[in-house]
């Protein structure tokens, strides 16, 4: 398969970015999207090292920087806004699990970094998602020290509650929800953590404090408000639903009412 790629290039956080166009050919449909970028990068490295091409004025800004790690959809490191969708056109997958068979031969594919004020660009397609760490540091935990925990079966938890908690805990922290939101809101991300812990008796105890602290930190870091457009749940690679935002809102309101 052959593709035309329009890729966002940006040297670093301080410079302005622009699109550059590349061609890739002979790509197997079984190739993953990131493997296709590996192939392009191999091409760019070889060209950049080729004096003939460089003398001909080959405009080569070197290989394209993009984040990736596990390549099996669980670490949350990969990102990419592909043809207007975070993680591309397929549903319930991260970019690393997207395969070229989902595109048509000859397609032009536009690749951008996450677009959000909360995630400044580091280079090309790599952004800084440190804000997510900061939000979780504000309260995304249960205050328990190592050792001294009661027996794991001491507190039974209803299966449906544990399952729902797990649904929310499946969040990989990739940032697709923020990138797709016109308000740049991190509500789905925040609610996934708040909801997952609020559903468990262990997490219930400091639920109010957690909801307030995490929402306050999210606001402080410049993420927008939620206006219920539901884009986040449409694009979430892990199928996390806005019912968790409803639970976060309930936790937050109850906490505020008690203040």
């Amino acid at each position, binding site marked *: 398969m052959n593709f035309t790629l329009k890729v966002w290039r940006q040297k670093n956080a301080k410079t302005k970015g622009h699109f550059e166009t590349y061609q890739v050919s002979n790509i197997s449909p079984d190739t993953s999207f990131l493997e296709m970028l590996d192939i392009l990068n191999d091409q760019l490295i070889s060209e950049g090292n080729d004096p003939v091409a460089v003398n001909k004025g080959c405009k080569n800004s070197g290989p394209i920087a993009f984040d990736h790690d596990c390549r099996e959809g*669980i670490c949350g*490191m990969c990102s990419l806004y592909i043809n207007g969708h975070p993680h591309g056109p397929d549903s319930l997958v991260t970019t690393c699990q997207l395969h070229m068979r989902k595109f048509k031969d000859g397609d032009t594919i536009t690749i951008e970094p996450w677009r959000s004020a909360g995630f400044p660009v580091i280079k090309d397609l790599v952004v800084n998602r440190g804000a997510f760490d900061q939000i979780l540091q504000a309260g995304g935990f249960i205050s328990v020290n190592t050792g001294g925990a009661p027996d794991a079966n001491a507190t*039974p938890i209803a299966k449906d509650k544990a399952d729902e908690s797990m649904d929310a805990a499946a969040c990989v922290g990739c940032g697709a929800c923020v990138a797709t939101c016109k308000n740049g809101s991190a509500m789905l991300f925040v609610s996934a953590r708040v909801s997952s812990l609020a559903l468990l008796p262990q997490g219930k105890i400091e639920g109010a404090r957690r909801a307030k602290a995490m929402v306050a930190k999210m606001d402080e870091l410049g993420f927008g408000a939620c206006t219920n457009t539901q884009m986040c749940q449409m694009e979430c690679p892990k199928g996390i639903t806005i019912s968790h935002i409803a639970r976060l809102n309930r936790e937050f309101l109850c906490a505020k009412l008690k203040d």
Partner: protein
Amino acid sequence: MEEKLNSKVPAGPLAEKWTKHKAAIKVVSPANKRKLDIIVIGTGLGGASAAATLGELGYNVKIFCISDSPRRAHSIAAQGGINAAKNYQNDNDSIYRLFYDTIKGGDYRSREANVYRLAEVSNLIIDQCVAQGVPFARDYGGLLDNRSFGGAQVSRTFYARGQTGQQLLLGAYASLNRQIAKGTVKSYPRHEMLDLVIINGEARGIIARDLVTGEIKRFGAHAVVLASGGYGNTYFLSTNAMNSNGSAAMQCFRKGAYFANPCFAQIHPTCIPKHGEQQSKLTLMSESLRNDGRIWVPKKLEDVERLRKRQVKASQIPEEDRDYYLERRYPAFGNLVPRDVASRAAKERCDAGFGVNETGLAVFLDFRSAIERLGQKTIEARYGNLFQMYEKITDVNPYEEPMMIYPAIHYTMGGIWVDYNLQTTIPGLYAIGEANFSDHGGNRLGASALMQGLADGYFILPYTIGDYLSHKIKESKQSTDTPEFEATEKAVRDKIAKIFAIKGKRTVDSIHKELGNIMWEYVGMSRNEAGLKKAIGLIDDLRKEFWSNVYVPGEPGEFNPEIEKAVRLVDFIEIGSLMAHDALNRQESCGGHFREEMQTEEGETKRDDVNYAYVSAWEYKGDGVTPELHKEPLNFEFVTPSTRNYKD
């Protein structure tokens, strides 16, 4: 035995060793802990749990990870579960049984005392994780559910769907976040350790590269904890994450830490087969699938032909023409034999020409009987995300057609040598989790990696490191303005400059792939003397090729993934050579290390307890120079090493 390799295993009955040892450890007062600095390299289950716990205790901790957040560490990809000897299923499990299964599963190449301690603290881990809010799978009564894993005849594996590693890591990461917020832990994401700084023979800091700016930085401490994971990516294609690497461990090796049992690499039987030359990594399908999936190839070669030509679908091959070879060869354990056994059995069938895909390197993992017995809904609830992942990658629906699987490199049992305190041969340098060698011997059982990472990090290292640090309370903050820091930083800068200056023709990846091919061919699932010698020669050539013909674009002082990969490849080349040397030396077959010269008539491993019941600990002598072998004898006081028998 050499003094350096003193395992410091305490005397006394097996079940009392850890308790007695803990009682003898000196403790550090809270006021003094505040003055002591600890560096932790890596934020997977080992690193995150250790850093969080050390922070809770009041030490000053600095953590370093190469990703943009501690939560990305590769522990997150562990699917199946975590073992513990809770005996919640009343199937007669116990600490002793978990210990015994683990030491037997490791083919009697690990220390009894370490493995027993691991089993002993396993129950505390489950308690701890539940308290942190890890949403483990539960039964309708609200209590925790279990499943079975290979090498065990009891159900002792706790799980959170097919994302157990993720949930455990998020638990440890949450504890870490709590400490970061409190200021006891400082986090350095996108920082890579490039060297260890030794002062007066002790580990006193690191040199790290800021991966965003390219800046080279110095960090001092009273102790350094290595939790940087394994070296499976030496093979290029593995189930490890793309950025997982052995460099931090190799820097320690170069600085004098012994490297133990490097040839023990685990080849996981159930991975999605390779599809082409452009492939960047292999994807694991959890071992938990072997609870309900049955592994088979056709009995008749003509069926194999038809399958390869796609004239027939697997589901159309009748029951009587299927060879469920694991059930046939190992009736007692069936599809749940340990990983090394299952991998070799798959290779044996494929070598005999029964591989079921075009490349001839695949076998079936079939859920038909389980779906008939339990219904698709149950199978979906158990493995839904794994089935989805399989379909996304292969475009085949595993509810209708069996999965195709083949073994792939997955985990490395070898690692930096540590004593019972998890201290390396360099005072003040500790190694935990997959980065050390200590608990899995020649083969790790499924669901034991998570157990070991968290055991080391939550319950063992925070105690044992106190013994060392209690002697450091009078030493002030380590200055980074010393000749040792100066020299180490200069060496790092020179190395990076040297790599940039080569300006050759080949990409880093192309050389890495070549290394991977050498490793898989000669230091892979089966090894022999001639092949290993050849591999060492080929790796020597490849080292020369790297240092004369690699091309790294861009600048050192910027975000530059190519230089990151190049620096790691320098170390992968040395690890590859080290693995081959170790495999050549170990003239026995045990666990994941199969020497063709040493097998039974049925093709099973033949261990040699007379000559090889030792840990091989290698000392660095220079890049490309044969390392020096030291031996730590393994004494079995409490169990008698026997031939592993999974047949009856």
